[in-house]
């Protein structure tokens, strides 16, 4: 196996160091040291937080029968499934999200457990998407599902936990935008457009295109003036909770009014949770309209053009796998959070040992290494038999702050930027300050 020499001996050929003969499939990638540490660190921070909110983790299978995963999720995800066959020729698929396997587990195994169930997960998901900003085909989702609880209290808990989670991930600035599918459904009903225009209506709202909405009304024939006004205002119903007041005045039927009332109650609870400053509202949110049944939300961070978290209420999914249960949940994409943090100046340092230790001729140094590691110090033992000067040079080029070698039975020689000195090999109080 070819190995790069640690001294970085610069051979003339650069070819083998960036070989083109081992291609990687489109949509997957390796995460190296600092990135891996960042992703694992974020997952650990989330698990610790979720534990304090009484959420329990599920480890879910990476693939299942395609029929299970294609359940009622709309043509979009269905078209993006990675499918393959098992040995009997049955169709399997890689999980496109974690909510579907979670819903299967709840519907088939946990249906008689005391509700609500508070569940969480972290894992890779797989979607064969056309290239989109910042998306790989494999990406890491972390999320929660709150199952068996209808109503604002559950919605508010899910959103407050989303805000707490993004904060726990060390993301300084972000905003979560909350919508409600009932508002658009109610408006569609009030407009009563012919079927041929319904798809266009949704597309035009999704693009926030006032011009297209006007064109559409032009083709729709007679539409009540109040409905016309509500539709043309829809792209503007985004912003702080004041837009709920504006939305209230545009309501044309019970569905719209109850959606706005839901959001107003939710807004009050989010105030109590202390997260009102991190959210705003958008009544024109029409993504995944067939999947969600109540509130929906997406989270954005400055500089990252795409959303990094999304979720909502989906009361109809679990019924496909077992007894019906109301449910609300969300998933965030750790890969996106990593980029968003970097855009805001949060960088994961490269993992570097605290100490480079030579044991050449001093095997007793290995015992010291064990004790130091037990105290959390990151100790790398030199295996190349480097002489003291070379050991220090190697430490410096790699950003390791100290080189150490045993000096007799109970003393160490310590080389630091300030110079070389001796230390008792049991000076653990001092060594504790070496921890980064």
């Amino acid at each position: 196996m070819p190995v790069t020499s640690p001294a970085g001996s610069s051979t003339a050929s650069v070819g083998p160091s960036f070989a083109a003969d081992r291609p990687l499939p489109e949509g997957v990638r390796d995460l190296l040291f600092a990135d891996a540490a960042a992703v694992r660190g974020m997952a650990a921070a989330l698990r610790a937080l979720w534990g304090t909110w009484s959420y329990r983790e599920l480890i879910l299978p990476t693939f299942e029968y395609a029929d299970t995963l294609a359940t009622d999720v709309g043509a979009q995800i269905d078209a993006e499934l990675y499918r393959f066959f098992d040995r009997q020729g049955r169709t399997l698929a890689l999980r496109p999200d974690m909510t579907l396997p979670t819903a299967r587990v709840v519907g088939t195994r946990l249906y008689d457990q005391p509700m609500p169930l508070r569940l969480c997960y972290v894992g890779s998901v797989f979607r064969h998407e056309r290239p989109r900003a910042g998306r790989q085909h494999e990406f890491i989702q972390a999320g929660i599902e709150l199952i068996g609880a209808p109503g604002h209290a559950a919605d508010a808990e899910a959103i407050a936990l989303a805000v707490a989670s993004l904060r726990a991930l060390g993301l300084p600035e972000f905003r979560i935008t909350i919508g409600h599918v009932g508002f658009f459904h109610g408006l569609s009903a009030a407009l009563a457009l012919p079927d041929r225009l319904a798809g266009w209506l949704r597309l035009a709202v999704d693009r926030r295109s006032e011009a297209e909405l006007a064109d559409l009304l032009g083709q729709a024939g007679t539409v009540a003036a109040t409905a016309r006004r509500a539709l043309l205002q829809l792209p503007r119903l985004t912003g702080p909770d004041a837009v709920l007041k504006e939305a209230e005045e545009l309501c044309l039927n019970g569905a719209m009014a109850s959606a706005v009332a839901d959001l107003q109650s939710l807004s009050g609870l989010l105030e109590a949770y202390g997260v009102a400053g991190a959210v705003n509202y958008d009544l024109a949110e029409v993504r995944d309209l067939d999947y969600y049944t109540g509130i929906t939300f997406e989270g954005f961070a400055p500089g990252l053009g795409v959303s990094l978290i999304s979720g909502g209420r989906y009361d109809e999914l679990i019924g496909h796998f077992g007894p019906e249960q109301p449910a609300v949940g969300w998933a965030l994409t750790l890969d996106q959070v990593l980029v968003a943090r970097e855009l805001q100046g949060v960088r994961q340092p490269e993992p570097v040992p605290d100490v480079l230790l030579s044991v050449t001729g001093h095997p007793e140094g290995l015992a010291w290494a064990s004790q130091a590691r037990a105290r959390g110090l990151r100790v790398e033992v030199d295996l190349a038999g480097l002489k003291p000067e070379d050991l220090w040079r190697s430490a410096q080029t790699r950003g390791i702050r100290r080189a150490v070698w045993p000096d007799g039975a109970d003393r160490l020689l310590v080389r630091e930027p300030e110079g070389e000195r001796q230390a008792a090999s049991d000076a653990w109080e001092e060594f504790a300050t070496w921890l980064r």
Partner: protein
Amino acid sequence: MAPLTIALPKGRLAEAGLACLARAGYALPANGDIGRRLVLDSPDGRLRLVMAKPSDVPVFVEYGAADLGIAGLDVVREAERDLYEPARLPFGHCRLVLAGRQGREERPLRLERSPKVATKFPHLTEAFFRRRGLAPEIIVMSGSVELAPQIGLADLIVDLVQTGTTLRENGLTELHVVLESQAVLVANRASYRLRAVEVREFIDAVVAAG
């Protein structure tokens, strides 16, 4: 407060786009700078202008490198990017049309086996034919599409037309309108929410300026 970043298309729409911003009350960089530099800050500090190749505008805006952008609807729809299109702007009008050699229109398109079509707009062209149940063979070109029928490369073309003069000069005639295009304002989905107030102000100012 950081300026809003606006991606503007170089070329056909550049002048009208800049004039539109000026009418909307934004101070523009000195004339000498425009065209020479690719990133310009407006003297009032409210806007940062990025001069981009037209087809790059939707990309800049989708990724959030620009908060908003001006581009032709033809370019925006061809790019199939995840964008908001909050306003149409009253300039840059043109048509994306299907054209063929003069005299050709007597044979209905729907009887073609697999029409050969040259275009710079492969996605829109594919969708246009597929919607009608036809399987086109698309030849993607990057310039002088109207040449293709003359040299036997393709039977048909899909290309932008303003007056139709170029088509006529090349012995071509318009068969169908694929898309009525004009300049549109596009917005990044994150900016639309994170900077909702400023973005809305900008949209309203530009629309009011007409």
